[in-house]
């Protein structure tokens, strides 16, 4: 045994990787080949049979890989700059144009820090907690409809799924705080538990009015029912519900003024006090993805989702049939870049004597790419409704993200007992009142 260990320790990293990887690759490759040869037919049938499953898995992977981390970067950059402006500061302006890469740099730096577990922690729980927090935050994105046809999965119990998965978030916080072997983390996590349990109830009850009006829990159909002008949005039919949902959502996202869990001035960093490096990065991202999710939910439930605020004439159906060009299409594809490059680069070469022909060509090529991309996007925006809806959805969502950041820059933090008292004494009765009023209205006036 010791000989093997010694031999193993003498190896370099690539040698270890090869030593482990090659047999695995051989075995797995052979197994996969045989399996495909045998199971290809029924597998394809199975996947075709339940397309929803495929769609779910693909959407999950896409969201985790594509959507969350860039969204977090954008939100972090927004927070850095907006709060800096509110503080009469400039904010990051060295990294990237207007410091736009600062959040990326922060994130990558956090991921590249040393990541160690302090002595005395409960190691498995300590390791799993960030994953739990991050995944629960990410999974809530699956049912959020971003545009017509652009959603992970259209459950008929989408809202229930959302609250259930979102409620799991606090489990991750509990794990983190309890395993950290740190009293600040313990206080922070107990605060998180109490706060989350108290605010889940008004959060859920405030939506019941919307469910009564919509008659369904599928977020997609809730959005489609708010189509038309902005007068059809639920915000006008459920003002009280909107208010309650907004306040409870702040608490759910752990944002100022209700950020009890990581109250910097009281508990050093709350549940994340003992976390460093990549694990802290998970919490870091999860917080901001959470902000985005909550804002998207507010938009979906009360502000018409991807519906335009007024009667939107598009998508217009452009009769663009590339196939009609026939062989001309080939010439177009072949000639358009050349011609565009020359045409766009020519003025520079003619007007400025300091620009050589080669530079002019480079400039022209870049400009042509910009023009081409812009043209494609414009075409998509005009002729595809999902592009329109996505644009509106993202726009509305970031309005609310800005509101969250705004409140963080403005308001101090409430005390924990005031927080609880507010949840139980005001939000809960108000939510119940909202439900009764809505039900009565539905009964009296009818839908």
């Amino acid at each position, binding site marked *: 045994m010791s000989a093997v260990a010694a031999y193993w320790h003498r190896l370099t990293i690539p040698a270890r990787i090869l030593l482990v990887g090659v047999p695995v690759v051989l075995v797995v490759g052979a197994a996969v080949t045989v399996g495909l040869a045998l199971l290809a037919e029924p597998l394809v049938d199975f996947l075709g049979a339940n397309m929803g499953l495929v769609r779910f898995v693909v959407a999950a992977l896409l969201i985790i890989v594509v959507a969350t981390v860039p969204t977090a970067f954008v939100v972090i950059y927004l927070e850095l700059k907006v*709060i800096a402006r*509110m*503080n*009469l*500061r400039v904010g990051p302006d060295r990294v990237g144009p207007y410091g736009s890469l600062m959040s990326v740099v922060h994130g990558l730096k956090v991921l590249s820090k040393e990541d160690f577990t302090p*002595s*005395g922690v*409960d*190691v*498995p729980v300590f390791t799993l907690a960030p994953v739990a927090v991050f995944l629960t935050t990410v999974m809530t994105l699956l049912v959020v409809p971003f545009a017509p046809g652009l959603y992970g999965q259209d459950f008929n119990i989408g809202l229930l799924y959302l609250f259930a998965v979102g409620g799991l978030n606090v489990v991750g916080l509990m794990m983190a705080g309890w395993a950290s*072997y740190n*009293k*600040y983390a313990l*206080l922070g996590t107990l*605060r998180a538990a109490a706060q989350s349990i108290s605010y889940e109830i008004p959060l859920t009850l405030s939506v019941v009015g919307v469910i009564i009006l919509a008659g369904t829990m599928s977020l997609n159909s809730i959005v489609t029912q708010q189509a038309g002008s902005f007068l059809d949005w639920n915000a006008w039919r459920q003002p009280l519900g909107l208010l309650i949902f907004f306040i409870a959502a702040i608490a759910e996202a752990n944002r*100022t*003024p209700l950020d009890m869990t990581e*109250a*910097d*001035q*009281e*508990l*050093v960093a709350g549940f994340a006090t003992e976390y460093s490096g990549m694990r802290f990065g998970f919490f870091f991202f999860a917080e901001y993805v959470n902000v985005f999710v909550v804002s998207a939910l507010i938009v979906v439930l009360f502000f018409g989702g991807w519906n335009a605020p007024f009667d939107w004439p598009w998508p217009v159906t452009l009769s663009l049939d590339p196939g009609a060009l026939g062989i001309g299409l080939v010439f177009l594809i072949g000639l358009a870049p050349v011609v565009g490059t020359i045409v766009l680069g020519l003025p520079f070469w003619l007007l400025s004597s300091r620009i050589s022909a080669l530079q002019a060509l480079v400039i022209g090529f870049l400009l042509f790419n910009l023009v081409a991309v812009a043209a494609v996007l414009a075409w998509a925006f005009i002729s595809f409704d999902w592009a329109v809806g996505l644009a509106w959805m993202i726009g509305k969502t970031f309005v609310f993200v800005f509101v969250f950041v705004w409140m*963080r*820059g*403005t*308001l*101090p*933090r*409430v*005390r*924990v*007992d*005031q927080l609880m008292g507010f949840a139980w004494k005001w939000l809960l009765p108000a939510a119940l009142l909202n439900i009764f009023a809505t039900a009565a209205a539905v009964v009296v006036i009818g839908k």
Partner: protein
Amino acid sequence: MTTPTRPSLDDPNLTIPVDRAGIFEPIPPARTERQQEFYALRDGEMLLNLGPQHPATHGVLRIVLKLNGEQVVDLDPVIGYLHRGVEKLCENADYHQAICYTDPLEYIASLFCEWSPVIAFEKLLDVQVPRRAEYIRVLAGELNRIASHALYIGFFALDLGGITPILWSFLERDEIVEMLTALTGAQLLFNYFRIGGVNGDLNHDFMSRLGDWMSRAGRQVEAGTALLNENEILVRRARGIGILDHETAFRMAVSGPNLRASGVPLDLRRAHPYSVYPELDFDIPTRSEGDCLARYLLRVDEIKQSLRIIDQCLHQMPDGPVMARLPRLVRPRPGRAYAAIEGPRGLYATYAISDGTDQPFRMRIHDPSFVHLQLLGLLMPGNLVADTMAINASLDPVMGGVDR
């Protein structure tokens, strides 16, 4: 994977084989009955160690909280992490150098830490200070008081969770420090007051900066405090927390704004005038509630009064020299002198004993923050952890002055 054994930090026989750093320091053997009663933990109580490096303890203060849930049962402040031995150093320096040792004590209002030793030495030397020097001292001192109170407002809001007011108040403070830098030539630790006067007369840069700052200072104060005074969250958090009545305040030897916030109009500028303050017209704002909100609002009122004093100083500024005639090396006659002034935090006092040599035989520096820090043990028990930050910020201790 096996989890390591987790020793309890509250175990009195727990010894950790690392250097005796503050945080995991094993509980020391009780030396006094107070310590015995503090470290005897009942069921459901735990010790929480704030500091010595905590964002809410201003500087290197360490507070051992005894918590029951989130409620503070008892606490034991541990200070001395910034003890620089100033008094011993002053006894080994001559009288001019001693001032240079004392002014980093209150690094937020350092002029006041030069003022009281200077007055004490002048009493030892029987030296008459020119009137212009006195007016310049009052002018610079009140400017420094405004800077200190501006920082207080910012830190108070910061410890309650608001991040913007601290930056706004730092703007004001930076402007004041810039103009005092133009006057004194030093940044933050202006070593400006000298025995028998001040170091250098008013210059044009200072006067021009002061002029255009005074033209909008009032509006700046209003704008800066409007964000907090009308803020329901802050008012609800600060009202009724840490109430200090005036009998207790006298028993605790409290002075300065914390005493006036309890309804006692005791201001040494009136109660024991020490400079040209008898010739100046200003009010002594008091508040009767004695809670955190009162202490905060009182500072805001004092800023306005200081603006009045600065205005009068600029109008009544006499001509003449700014330094008395003194030798470079002063040897006062043997004797004892005590001088106390009203600083932004309370009573700064210096007690100097001269034995006829050029070095003070004994120099005692009394700082209000040191006394006010005892109030933590009086006001915090029964409150939540979040309130301890509010109380600590409202008492406005400066650890440099506490530890000296």
